[in-house]
């Protein structure tokens, strides 16, 4: 089977497995939506009516099949609280979440490559020691604390960037939109970079110890020029980890959007969770899962092209 077909199968299987997990956790574990919606004083008749309206009286397997069937046709149901079409709500917010996630990934990969390689070459100097310590400690700090820290420094003290919000016209005001998203991207990329630097650094260390590096040096290349011959070799594992970290990144986006009051998928989901809007949360999570596996497919696809050994 070709690499692309195999990756597609894995992605589809992953979406299905995650959707089952989401469904089970939201529908089977707790009480039920009707009680949440109508409160504990509701009459049995009213509860029964609401349950049949949402199909909650049907077997769970049928409910799951219904949900996935409608989702496949593009129908993500309606909000329990507002009665709005969930698909419209989600579509309006992908404009923020997708650029946020993609820019953060890009920044994190680029930054971790730069830091990791330098930290490997200069491991006995200050740069290496500082970079290693900061990344070791940095992975631990929660994303929202980093976000609040960035707001304090860059929005409150230096007044360089907005502390939150997003222009009402969205990307039709590209400069304002970019300025609004700069700090969120930095907050989201920070933890990601700390994770990736470890892999970039250890891969670069392997290369620096190799014969290939010594040969490159002996032909008169500078350290940086010699390192650049191994860029693909360092990038490949970094992209591999990036693909695996996408679910963590999307979860981070939920937090970051709330910290910076961005109108994205994550901040919407936090509000829906607070409102106990279970059907909407369920469909939003499905979109998040599809997003994770689509992005992972893309990153893996690029990575396979960079390093053909991965396909064998």
């Amino acid at each position, binding site marked *: 089977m070709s690499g692309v077909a195999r990756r597609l199968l894995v992605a589809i299987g*992953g979406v299905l*497995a*995650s959707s089952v*997990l*989401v469904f089970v*956790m*939201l529908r089977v*574990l*707790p009480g039920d939506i009707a009680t949440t919606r109508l409160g504990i004083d509701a009459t049995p008749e009213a509860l029964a009516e609401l349950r049949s309206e949402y199909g909650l009286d049907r077997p769970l397997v049928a409910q799951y099949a219904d949900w996935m069937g409608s989702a496949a046709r593009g129908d993500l149901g309606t909000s329990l609280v507002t009665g709005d079409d969930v698909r419209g709500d989600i579509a309006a917010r992908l404009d923020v979440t997708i650029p946020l996630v993609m820019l953060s990934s890009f920044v994190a990969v680029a930054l971790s490559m730069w830091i990791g390689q330098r930290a490997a070459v200069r491991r006995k100097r200050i740069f290496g020691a500082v970079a290693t310590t900061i990344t*070791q*400690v940095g*992975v*631990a*700090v*929660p*994303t*929202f*604390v980093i976000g*609040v*820290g960035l*707001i*304090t420094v860059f929005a*409150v003290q230096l007044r360089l960037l907005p*502390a939150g919000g997003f222009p009402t016209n969205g990307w039709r005001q590209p400069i304002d939109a970019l300025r609004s998203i700069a700090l969120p991207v930095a907050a989201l990329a920070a933890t990601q970079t700390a994770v990736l630097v470890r892999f970039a650094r250890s891969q670069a260390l392997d290369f620096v110890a190799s014969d290939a590096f010594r040969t490159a040096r002996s032909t008169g290349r500078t350290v940086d020029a010699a390192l650049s011959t191994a860029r693909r070799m360092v990038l490949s594992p970094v992209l591999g980890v990036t693909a695996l970290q996408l*679910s*963590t990144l*999307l*979860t981070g986006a*939920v*937090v970051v959007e*709330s*910290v910076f009051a961005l109108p994205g998928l994550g901040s919407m*989901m*936090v509000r*829906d*969770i*607070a409102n*106990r*809007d*279970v059907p909407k*949360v369920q469909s939003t*999570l499905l979109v998040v899962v599809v997003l994770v596996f689509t992005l992972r497919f893309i990153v893996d696809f690029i990575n396979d092209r960079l390093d053909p050994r991965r396909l064998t």
Partner: protein
Amino acid sequence: MTHHPTPTARSTRTPTLAAGALLVGCIAAITLLGLVWTPHDSIAVDSTMRFSPPSANHLLGTDQLGRDVLSNVIEGARTTLLAGMLATFIAIALGGILGVVAAVSRRWIDDVITAVATVFVAFPALLLALVIVAARGPSTGTVVITVGVAAGASVVVVTRRDAADIMRSPYVLAARFSGGTTFRIVTTHVLRNLMPSLMVQATSAASIAIVAESTLSYLGLGTTPPTPSWGRMIASTQQYLLVHPMLTLWPALFICVTVVGVTLLGDGLRDRLDATLLP
């Protein structure tokens, strides 16, 4: 069981372990102090003392409702540490037991446990907790249990691998040939040799749990009022960041000290145990 004396030279070369232990020790001391004494009642509102700067009476000042910041920080430590410890206990107990069971059981039991654990590992603990909160409503208990189970999934995977390695080791084979049952081998050899690995995993579970509790509380989906929580302190004071940044930065600082301490402790333990005891 094999016993390696700890080389004394190594212990002086692990400053991360000492630094981590020091930071965690400070937070633990603050928590213990908070059990018996806080400078003020953490939830006592005083409208005449809103936003007062640090003074002898209020060492870290007061917040937007005139509550003593130091008392809230001290009591927040209790919430965070308790949530972290309980979730870690769940993760290690659940993950340790299932991991060992998977390693010594029939193939199909192993496969089922590993498959379920793998699906859970793919879901970040925080996302899992968000899903459960959507279904059950916010509470510290929900967060603790969910994060405990989520962190337990990766403990299952690691413990299964480590336990399987131990089961293949010469001393277990020797025990088997001298007539030891699987149960006896597990209790005398496997569990004792798993301890170092479980200790390292406990620190990473604790770090995940502390981050999850404070993040969910920040989002308004975790610890509910009136229980003081660092995450909620940050959320409720963020709007005053321009004028009173310290109200937000104190709880943020304490969160950082705690998670960094736990992480350094874990890294230090790993460095120290890698060479000697980890299978």
